[in-house]
Structure formats: structure tokens, C-alpha cells
């Protein structure tokens, strides 16, 4: 399978690989996917007091498209508010990386990872008021 130049670039030079302290109150962690399915993404965000995502890190087990999708979203979410980050669609990711149809699930997983990280942050920081009520 031929990969797009952007996928290759993210695979060879992944942005923001690493981990944030998951016990920090300002950090939200999303872990999605399953080893049996061949891809697992861990996405972490650090949220400022003003509600802006000031840092993001990822680790991914998966194919080149999965690695590129997670690397790309760490770039995209930085500097965004939680609502802005939550509005990132898998179709935007797939389009940016020119993913073929068989790899669309990688972009879906990346969208899920953002949402899971945001949900974790809200839960930890007590801002998950809607769910609590």
C-alpha cells in the first residue's frame, strides 16, 4: 500500500511522542483501541486554568496511518479550548492525511482518543457537571 507523504512524515518524525503525568489534575488521558484489533492509542492533554490545551502527548501501537493520525491530532489540539478540540472530526483527519478507505478507522480512533482524553480531564477536575447532575 502506498502511503501519502504526510503519513510518512508523521511516521518518521512523529510529533509529541511521550507521556504526561496522569496523576496531575490538569492532565486528561484517553486510551482507546485494543491490541487484538491491531491498534491502541494513548492521548494525553494538559489543560491550563483558562481551559486551553497547552500540551499534548501520544503513544500509539498500530500501523503507519494510526501513528500519523495520533501524531497529527496532538498538533491540532494544542492551543485549542476543550470545545474546539472536541469538535475535531475523523473526516478532517482522514482528509488531511489522505487516508484510503481501509484506513478510515485509524482516524476514527484518533477522534475517539481526543474525546476520551477530554472526558477524563473533565471527570478529574470536577467539571463533568453535566454527567454528575
Amino acid at each position, binding site marked *: 500500500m502506498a502511503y501519502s507523504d504526510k503519513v510518512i512524515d508523521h511516521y518518521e518524525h512523529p510529533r509529541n511522542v511521550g507521556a504526561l503525568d496522569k496523576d496531575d489534575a490538569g492532565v486528561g488521558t484517553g*486510551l482507546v483501541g485494543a*491490541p487484538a484489533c*491491531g491498534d491502541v492509542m*494513548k492521548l494525553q492533554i494538559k489543560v491550563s486554568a483558562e481551559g486551553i490545551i497547552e500540551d499534548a502527548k501520544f*503513544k500509539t*501501537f*498500530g*500501523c*503507519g496511518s494510526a501513528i500519523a493520525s495520533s501524531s497529527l491530532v496532538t498538533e491540532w489540539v494544542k492551543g485549542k479550548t476543550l470545545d474546539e478540540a472536541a469538535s475535531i472530526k475523523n473526516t478532517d483527519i482522514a482528509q488531511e492525511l489522505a487516508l484510503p478507505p481501509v484506513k478510515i478507522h485509524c482516524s476514527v480512533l484518533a477522534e475517539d482518543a481526543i474525546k476520551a482524553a477530554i472526558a477524563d480531564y473533565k471527570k478529574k477536575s470536577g467539571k463533568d457537571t453535566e454527567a454528575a447532575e
Partner: protein
Amino acid sequence: MTAFGKTPSLTRPQGAPVYLDYQATTPCDPRVVDAMLPWFTEKFGNPHSRNHRYGWEAEEAVEQAREQVADIIGADSKEVIFTSGATESNNLALKGVAHFYKDKKNHIVTVVTEHKCVLDTCRHLEQEGFTVTYLPVKADGLVDMDELDAAITDKTVIVSVMAVNNEIGVIQPLAEIGALCRKKGAFFHTDCAQAVGKIPLDVNAMNIDLMSISGHKLYGPKGIGALYVRRRPRIRLVPLITGGGQERGMRSGTLATPLCVGLGMACAIAKAEMGAEAEKLKRLNQRLLGGLQQRLPEIYVNGHLDHRIPGNLNISFAFVEGEGLMMGVKDLAVSSGSACTSASLEPSYVLRALGLDAEMAHTSLRFGMGRFTTDEDIDFAIDHIVEAVEHLRAMSPLWDMHLDGVDIKSIQWAEH
């Protein structure tokens, strides 16, 4: 150095990846190509033309090739028919025998790790009303002889077990299987696409009744193969392709003289050089496995380590996904058992049949070494693989969990 001279070397085009996929296909040996060339141009006759020299010389060449093929498996040349390849041979063996004997017997026994062309042919026969038993394999990839014994009934017309598996390279106990089939009165067919020219084969010593052979897996051309069909006791087949009655009525159509000559030459060279080649490949295999094991923890060989052809290694690199790894080793031409490299998105059915977890099947690469593989190729491959695996493990959340002592199986994953 044999009767065929020094084994030639092949130069790789500038920038081309190192080829480590010899179970997918092999390059044609230059000596095979040399033998084929005259039969395209000046000696172009139809081997079935009986009226002139063009036909006679082509027929003579085809018959010599038939003897060379027969010779490497201990058969008589009258028992060898040419086909388009092992897929056709497997189809002809199974459908041909099943159809011919259908009034007496209706049961077929095969194994879950067979090549798709055997499994799919069996599926078609099931749709026609035949019963098929698909035997499991043990964790090392080998057939359990007691289970095979129990599966064969007085209704079993044919047992089909491959000699060497294309993914994991394991060698099935052909002589034992042949003896069992003979004792129980079932024909024994074996797909030897990956075995001919790699391991010694003898149709009589092993009680093989039908054997499929492929040209392009043993340094011959693509588009040609052969089927061995035992004459004593005689095995009968209903042909798949009818017409002029060539190949003793079992496979009509004008023979491709250059391809037959190529297959014959490939068999002759393989017979002469098999011993030395196996020694070399064993050394390269140990070099590759040893080199990787020395530098990478958590890697596992799939399939029996000793009962396998020396040109194959199938390794799972835990916590690294196979397709991602293939992308990292772009200067190597290898195959992966990962789902992502297949259209079906299912991980390798062969690896799953060994009882491997889906996550381990996702992390496998198959390395195929052969006649033109060099020590330098292996050393390059080791460096390249180690670099890619370390790069990907540094990015893998599963590797982190492993280092932290977390049992990945204990986590509730959301399957998607």
C-alpha cells in the same frame, strides 16, 4: 560447484530493497533463463506437432524437462503432468480425484493451515456435496498424527496435507502421513510448492500419490507448475481443462515449451545444489535470529524451530504492530501476518491456527531467505529491524505497560 557451474549472484538495482520474501516468489536463476531463451525464438515449435522437426525438437525438450521434474521427487516421468502452477495442480488433484471417485467415496481430509487454494477448493467441493474435515494443528504448526488417524474413514477419498507451510515454513511429517494414508486406503496429496528443491522428497518412500509443484518458488519461471499423479497403483482424475487431450488427457492445451524447459532446469539445479544451499540458509537463518535475539527482547519465533525449512523465519515482535513495522523497514521486502496488510483486516489464519493471540499475530513478520541472499543482506536486515522496532516500541503504549509490569490481558479493551 556442481555440473551447473558456480551459483550465480544477482545484483540488486540501485535503491531497491533487500529481498527477504522468498516464500512469496523467487527470482529466476540466470541459468534457468539461459536454458529457456532458445525456445522462445528459433526453437518455437509446437511440442505436439508430430509432422516436422520444429515439433520434434520441442517435444524432446519438454520430455527432458519432464524427466528433470520427475527426478527431483523420485518419480517416473510418465507420472508428471505440466500445469500453470501449484494453484491449478491443487485444484486438479482435489477436484479431479473427488469427481472421479464420487460414487464410492465423498470425504476429504485437509488441514486448517493449508494454502488458500487448497482450502477454497475444498469449500467448493463442500458446496457440491462432499464432506471435508479441516484438521487443526499443534502450537508448533505440525499435524497431530492421532487426530489425522481418527479423521480418516472408509469414506475418505483423499488426504491433502502441505509439505512446507508458506507462512511459517514448518515441515509436516510426510512419510508418516503417507504410510497412514496407504494403510487406511486413502489417497495422499501434498502441496509441495514450498518444498520442492528445499527438502529431499521421494514419492515412493513417502507414499505420496499426488504432488503439486510450483515453478516460481524454486527459481524457475512463473506460470508453470506440475502435478505428480501416481501410476502404480493408478490414480484417476477427471480433468479440469478439456480439449486436445494433451498430458495424458488430464490437462489439455499446448504446452509452453520455454516454461517447461525452465521448470526442468530449475529442478535439475535444485537437485544438484540443495544440500549446499540448505547449509548456507541454515547459517543465514541462525545469523538473523541470533542477531535479533541478541539486540531485541520479547521476540518470538512462530512455528516449530527445527522442523522448518532453513529459508524461513516468522517472528512476532511483541508490542509493535506488523504493518507499522513493515513501514519502518522499508528497505527490506518482507511480509507481515498483520491484519492491516490484508484486504480482510483479519490477522493471519495460519498464525491464529497455532493458537497465537490476535495481538501476537498482528506483530509478526515473515523473513524468506534464498539462493541469492548474502551475509551482508542479513546484517543490513538486522540493523534495520532493530532500529525500526526500537523506534516503534518507544512510541508504543503497550511497551510502556509491559515495562511497568502491567499485564495487557488484564485490561478491559474496547474492541472496535
